[in-house]
């Protein structure tokens, strides 16, 4: 099953199991089923609970906040995550504030789905990874889809949280296969790191024997895997990949023993550098493991610039597996 189908199936199950959930977004109705088909079949199966909206991102997220305020649950699709900038006010100033600014906890079950990332030639305003702009907002959880994850469980966790959640879905994953049975490929296996609240670990034989740990969100997982393959086969360097389900709030504690044992940590993400999720993770690692690392945590980002439309130019800007290989090698020399 591909990741797009897995997300679609998860939404079908969520709507079937919980009649209080509604889905809103632009062009989400059948037969189109959303720009990436993640909402396909929903409007036919759940008439009245799936709403096609005008092109009004701030308005749609506000409506979703109102549905949640009135006792329902809402899942919003932002067609391209770049457009979530238009809903910044409703997310940061209303939804995330409302869970606490009225002096007592208020439940606001609300998910904003954000198809993000480049690699598909959509150009500067349809390819960005804007996660970093939403990191560190109290009352706002940031998640990212991973090809290792159980997406039904993911939606369940977000709705149960009772707080607004942003879910970044790297578009490059939609057509990729969902991993299953703990097997990533012929070299790597994966499982959930016990006690980590949804961090997948990917490794060769023993997760405790890695030379380096790579921490990366779901959208970068394939590039990290490709880098790990190169490093293992060509340099005999073994890496452990950690893919967290939730980017914020993020607690590095359950990862610490693995990071300490390796002593070398790379964080890779597709965003541009500066005020990033990776920097937040690195700070936590430094605070906890300072003196027990061989070198400071190495951050891997895309180049500081717009994301060009042409494939060859886009490739030059976005994080590739080669950049991760380079970062690991530099860290270990």
């Amino acid at each position: 099953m591909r990741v797009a189908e897995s997300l679609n199936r998860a939404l079908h199950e969520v709507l079937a199991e919980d009649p209080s959930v509604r889905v809103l977004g632009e062009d989400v109705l059948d037969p189109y089923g959303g720009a990436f088909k993640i909402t396909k079949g929903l409007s036919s199966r759940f008439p009245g609970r799936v709403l096609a909206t005008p092109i009004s991102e701030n308005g749609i997220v506000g409506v979703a906040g109102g549905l949640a305020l009135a006792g329902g649950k809402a899942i919003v699709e932002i067609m391209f995550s770049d457009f979530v900038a238009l809903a910044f006010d409703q997310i940061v100033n209303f939804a995330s504030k409302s869970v606490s600014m009225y002096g007592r906890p208020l439940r606001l079950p609300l998910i904003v789905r954000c198809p993000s990332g480049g690699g598909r030639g959509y150009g500067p305003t349809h390819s960005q990874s804007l996660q970093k702009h939403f990191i560190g907002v109290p009352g706002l959880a940031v998640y990212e889809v991973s090809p290792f994850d159980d997406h039904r469980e993911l939606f369940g966790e977000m709705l149960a949280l009772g707080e607004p959640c942003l879910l970044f879905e790297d578009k490059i994953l939609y057509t990729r296969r969902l991993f299953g049975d703990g097997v990533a490929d012929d070299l790597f296996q994966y499982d959930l790191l016990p006690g980590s609240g949804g961090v997948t670990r990917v490794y060769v034989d023993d997760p405790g024997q890695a030379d380096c740990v790579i921490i990366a969100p779901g959208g970068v997982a394939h590039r990290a895997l490709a880098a790990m393959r190169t490093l293992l086969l060509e340099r005999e360097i073994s890496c452990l990949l950690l893919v967290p389900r939730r980017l914020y709030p993020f607690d590095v504690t359950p990862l610490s023993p693995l990071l300490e044992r390796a002593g070398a940590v790379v964080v890779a993400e597709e965003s541009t550098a500066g005020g990033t999720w990776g920097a937040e993770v690195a700070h936590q690692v430094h605070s906890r493991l300072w003196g027990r690392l061989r070198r400071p945590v190495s951050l891997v980002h895309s180049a500081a610039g717009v994301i060009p439309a042409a494939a060859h130019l886009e490739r030059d800007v976005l994080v590739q597996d080669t950049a991760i290989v380079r970062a690991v090698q530099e860290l270990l020399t």
Partner: protein
Amino acid sequence: MPERLLEEITENLSDDDLGLLLLIRHFERKLLDLFGQGLVQGTTHTCLGQEYVPVALAPLLDERDFVFSNHRGHGHYLARFRDPYGLLAEITGREGAVCGGVGGSQHILSGRYLSTGIQGESLPVATGVALHLRDAEPGVLALAYVGDGTWGEGAVYEALNMAALWRLPLVVVTENNGIAQTTPTSAQLAGTIGDRARAFGCRFLHVDSRHPHEIRDALRPLFERTRQGAGPLVVEFATHRIGPHSKGDDTRSAEEIRHARDHDWYPRQGGSPRFARLDAEARAFVEVVAGEVLARPLSGREG
């Protein structure tokens, strides 16, 4: 609606209506007084001169209706709950505060009443609530108070578009006091609010009257139609803010302020004996409230 003589406004009201108007007036006067003494932090936006709007609307609303208020919301809150203790405790951060002192003057949630401090932000949220009500609680409506300045925000139009498309039970009450903070409406609003509302196919009513009975008579059938599925209603009150935007920031000329004061419902000559009695009662009650609330310990916060 034709302008009525100012004296008629207060004289034709029941003791209850007049008492509520006076409670809001004296509550906010006391707030400005407390602000001057340094007992109110931050800022406070008073609705002096506009109190009759929420007082007129109060009996048109059911307790199941949602009310969304804005930065200038003390009158909206008091007209709904008649709870000066909880509101003053909220504004001064004392025990018994409606929201533990976290929200303050501009961010209050109590039952189906919610205020936020950002212009226009509440309209998409009210639209979402109205969507829920349309399907889950037919006959119940969401009402949002906004100012004339709020019509500069794109969120207003996104919300009106959806509310009209989906025929939602939403009432948008605009308190057009002719000035957005310090900017005259004529310098920040092209065209008219009525034309903007009608452009979305919303029903619209402009209200010049300051007489609660007249306002209620005009609005009752329109509210009823909104409850019955006729779609959103936009009401524009031509009103006058006789105080500053917040505190000490009134840049209007003496003549403009005098013009606003000329439209105050509060009689300058002291009014009738009944008015004088209710006025003294409200003033004394607010003094009791303030004394009691300010003697309370500081608020703790929950959760």
